[in-house]
């Protein structure tokens, strides 16, 4: 398959089941909501090293938030409900509770729950209070600029983590430009995040390493500076590879984001030097979700 002059490999991305939650963070201004969201989704690129994968899903208009203030929706993904509960407690406690003017609400119902305000309420030292409004229950925790309002629980649902595709091109600049277009397009797709910095990964990994203590190491077949020395997966003219990893609330959302990203990356391919799109998998033996590139683009 060829898309605007870019070769699309007949392969698939292999993704895994995860547990996810969505939180809505509001503040006095969109800037402060974004600051809180960026802080709480920092150092959350991979469950391997961070315990959780998190990112900003979208901005929320005042009409779409519980308290009528501007907000940010963030998504968090972990390998289990317990891991997600720990990440939610720690990150909301350290990055949202601490950020001026914020409040934090559950952003999805889910089929399970993790404690949110319930896990943080004791910071109120006895002055915290619960407030049920309609069908939802909140905690009011007194802080120095007023009160931190936080919903009692956050819903958790099954989700998909590890959707991916790789962009190969003739120069670092050309691949970066294509990748930036892809991420910009994917940010319009609901229910997904691209958890790595700027949505991009340059350090794609393979399972295992020559060092016993390291479970994963650099994906040498895709490292252009090694292509003459290892069993490379790259053509001679490829000088740069970037990957986009996608976590989503549903398989359909991940597929939609991948398709949007690949199409955007390939736009104006004749000018940008992008040569090939491929995807990472483990032979289909590890993850239950397989995103075949050709099927996504049909």
């Amino acid at each position: 398959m060829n898309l605007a002059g870019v070769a699309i490999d007949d392969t698939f991305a292999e993704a895994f089941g995860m547990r996810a939650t969505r939180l809505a963070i509001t503040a006095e201004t969109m800037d402060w909501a974004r600051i809180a969201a960026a802080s709480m989704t920092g150092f959350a690129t991979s469950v391997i090293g961070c315990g959780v994968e998190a990112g900003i899903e979208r901005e929320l208009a005042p009409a779409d938030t519980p308290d009528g203030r501007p907000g940010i929706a963030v998504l968090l993904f972990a390998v289990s409900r317990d891991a997600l509960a720990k990440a939610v407690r720690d990150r909301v406690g350290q990055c949202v509770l601490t950020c001026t003017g914020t409040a934090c609400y559950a952003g999805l119902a889910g089929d399970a729950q993790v404690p949110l305000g319930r896990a943080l309420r004791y910071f109120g030292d006895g002055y915290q209070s619960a407030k049920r409004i309609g069908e939802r229950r909140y905690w009011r925790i007194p802080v120095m600029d007023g009160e931190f309002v936080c919903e009692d629980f956050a819903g958790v649902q099954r989700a998909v983590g590890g959707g991916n595709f790789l962009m190969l091109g003739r120069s670092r600049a050309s691949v970066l430009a294509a990748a930036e277009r892809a991420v910009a397009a994917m940010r319009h797709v609901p229910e997904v995040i691209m958890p790595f910095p700027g949505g991009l990964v340059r350090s794609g990994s393979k399972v295992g390493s020559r060092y016993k203590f390291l479970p994963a190491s650099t994906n040498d077949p895709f490292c252009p500076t090694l292509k003459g020395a290892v069993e490379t997966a790259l053509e001679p003219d490829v000088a740069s590879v970037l990957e986009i990893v996608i976590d989503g609330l549903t398989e359909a959302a991940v597929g939609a984001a991948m398709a949007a990203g690949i199409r955007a990356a390939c736009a104006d391919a004749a000018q940008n030097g992008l040569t090939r799109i491929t995807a990472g998998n483990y032979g289909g033996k590890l993850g239950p979700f397989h995103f075949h590139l050709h099927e996504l683009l049909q």
Partner: protein
Amino acid sequence: MTRLVLKAEPPVRLAVDGLIPERLAGLSPAEIERLPLALGNRRQCVADWFRIEATDDAAVEIEGDCRRLDKIGGGMGGGTLHIRGDVGAYLGIGLSGGTIAVAGAAGYGAATDMRGGTLRISGDAGDALGGALPGALGGMRGGTVLVAGRAGAETGRRLRRGLVIVGGDAGAACGAEMVAGTIVIGGGTGTLAGAAMRRGSIIALGGALRVGATFADCGVHDLIFLRLLARHLTALGLGSLAARLGPLRRWMGDAAVGGTGELLVPA
């Protein structure tokens, strides 16, 4: 809709807590007419006091001068009950689900021991709205009560959970001995508001008469939870009341019982 038209005003109190949608559903007019009623200490039946007009709708409507009808909607768990006219004591006692709507005023003890559902009163409510059963430690523990007019003394006494909204004034001892929950008063409250309250919120938008000495003035604040409440009130059709939930003065108490509740009044 099952329509029950009161034939005449009873000479003494008539308890009608059995006339609720789940009890009447599926019954023919003749079967409804044979249901027992207690007139004072005398055993009578529905046909003695009501004319029945039934259709296949699950909703129930009671029409007439119901001021001597007590426990209307008592123990109701679902469905809809409309009453055209004033009602007697203990309207919606033990209500756990569904909606009761009164086009008129309610007497003593409406929403006593209420656990869920919605109770709407278009006129005034008597004393002990949303209160506790005699001897019970906890009062209303769920649901929403909306009174368009005024409410009497001891509104929301021993309230544990739920939302009580009064459009007009409330009498003395509003929210006394409250354990939790929320009371919104569009007008003012009488004396002893929140006396011996432990937690919960009393929002008196028309002010509170002589705030108790065991309440601490914590200043004027624009509380975020009031925005959540405002949205909820707007959804209940109370947009004008919601618009008044701005910065308010927070009195915390009642310190006499180690309480951390709050009385919110205009700045």
